[in-house]
């Protein structure tokens, strides 16, 4: 789990569409360990929000400060947007 009570980095996470459905909220602030990576954020989200969020994590885009990130080893920065794709027309 993240060090919610520790002295970590504060990350503002916004959830969209199925990500918001999974998190039951549109945005929240998470306190992560110093040096937290995108990968550790994903682990935390799945731990918190379960299977629905796992599906989002597997297929959705994570934008770190407005740039899509595919590398789980990168640090999360201070602003993350979680956006699942869908193709209905």
């Amino acid at each position, binding site marked *: 789990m993240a060090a919610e009570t520790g002295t970590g980095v504060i990350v503002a996470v916004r959830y969209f569409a199925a990500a918001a459905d999974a998190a039951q909220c549109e945005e929240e602030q998470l306190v992560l360990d110093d040096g937290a990576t995108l990968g550790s954020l994903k682990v935390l989200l799945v731990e918190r929000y379960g299977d629905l969020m796992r599906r989002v994590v597997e297929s959705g885009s994570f934008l770190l400060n*407005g740039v*899509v990130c595919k590398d789980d080893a990168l640090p999360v920065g201070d602003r993350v947007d979680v956006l699942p794709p869908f193709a*209905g*027309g």
Partner: protein
Amino acid sequence: MSSPVPLVEPGARLAPERLARYSRQLALPGFDDVAQRRLANARVLVIGAGGLGSASVPYLASAGVGTIGVIDTDVVELSNLHRQIVHGVADIGRSKLDSIADTVAGIDPATTIIRHDVRVDSSNILDILADYDVLLDGSDNFPTRYLANDAAALTGKPLVWGAILQYHGQVGVAWAGHGPTYRDLFPTPPAPGTIPSCSEGGVLPSVCAVVGAIMGAEAIKLITGIGRPLLGTVTTYDALSGRFREIDFAADPDSSPITELIDYEAFCGISSEPVRGDEKSAVGSDLEPNFEPGFDPGFEIDARRLADLLADGDPIQLIDIREPYERAIAAIEPSELIPLGTLVHRIDEIRRDIPVVLYCHTGVRSASALAFLRESGFHNASHLVGGIDSYSATVSPALVRY
């Protein structure tokens, strides 16, 4: 993003009757007779005469876009009508292109509608797009979305894309050379089967209207040069909250340049080969059932085969893994309802001593359920290829299709 120059040069002067038709938009601040002539001279290509096409094409026509090409190969079905409002009851069974053309003609017979009755792919999109100024993607699948993005990028034409699912919508503009593209937002397509389609997950019709109307507005803005296009911003709509939220995004610094069209089905992990069960059941299991002679314990069973088994009274357990609302529309009987979402909790109800056949609407969910059962040791399970839709089309036309 700075406001780009208008995409289309103005056409000829408009007759007074045309000016009268457009008087309520000519009155708009920043919109004038020249803007109207740009629209008249514009050629817009729309992929899909479905929900988003229904919500964008009529507005493009009514606003005065002179030429609208539409790509679609489908025919109108009853289950389209709740959201694809260019089509009506009388259009069921007709080509969607003919239907949307009639609707547009009813709004303005001067609009030129070009019908592209083709499956759009890498082999034809560039030829089709060559005759147009802007591309609108209202398709219903990921391969086409990446195809549309790449074709627009290669030709330097702007793409207006919209997507809908359940209560959610997304819409944006991609324009290589002017801002980021769809690939900068979604660099990797989702694995097949991980994102439901509208037929699986449902969609609120007014979400189509919202997203399609925004797509129409973006096209009009690009053509006339008014406002600022949704470049580098994706607008999201949540009908349950009634709120819009935007995400500003920049180009992906790690993305590869788009240099050619590719095989988008393969890119999206979709095989053109049907999935076949070529592995046989585990040998020597205590749970190995005694199959009826001639029953293939492979992964798949087609509609005719299932009909034969049911007609012969062979002992099988037929399980409907759809939702109750679907079963109320049509069901293959005798069967038991175990919705997919409850299967994991109701696995004790699955027989191990006789063949088990799973079915859903089109065979996508049942394939997923089958994989789960196989992993759980049910080597006696198979699923109906094409689902009840294929069963109705092939052997039992009295079953209502949806």
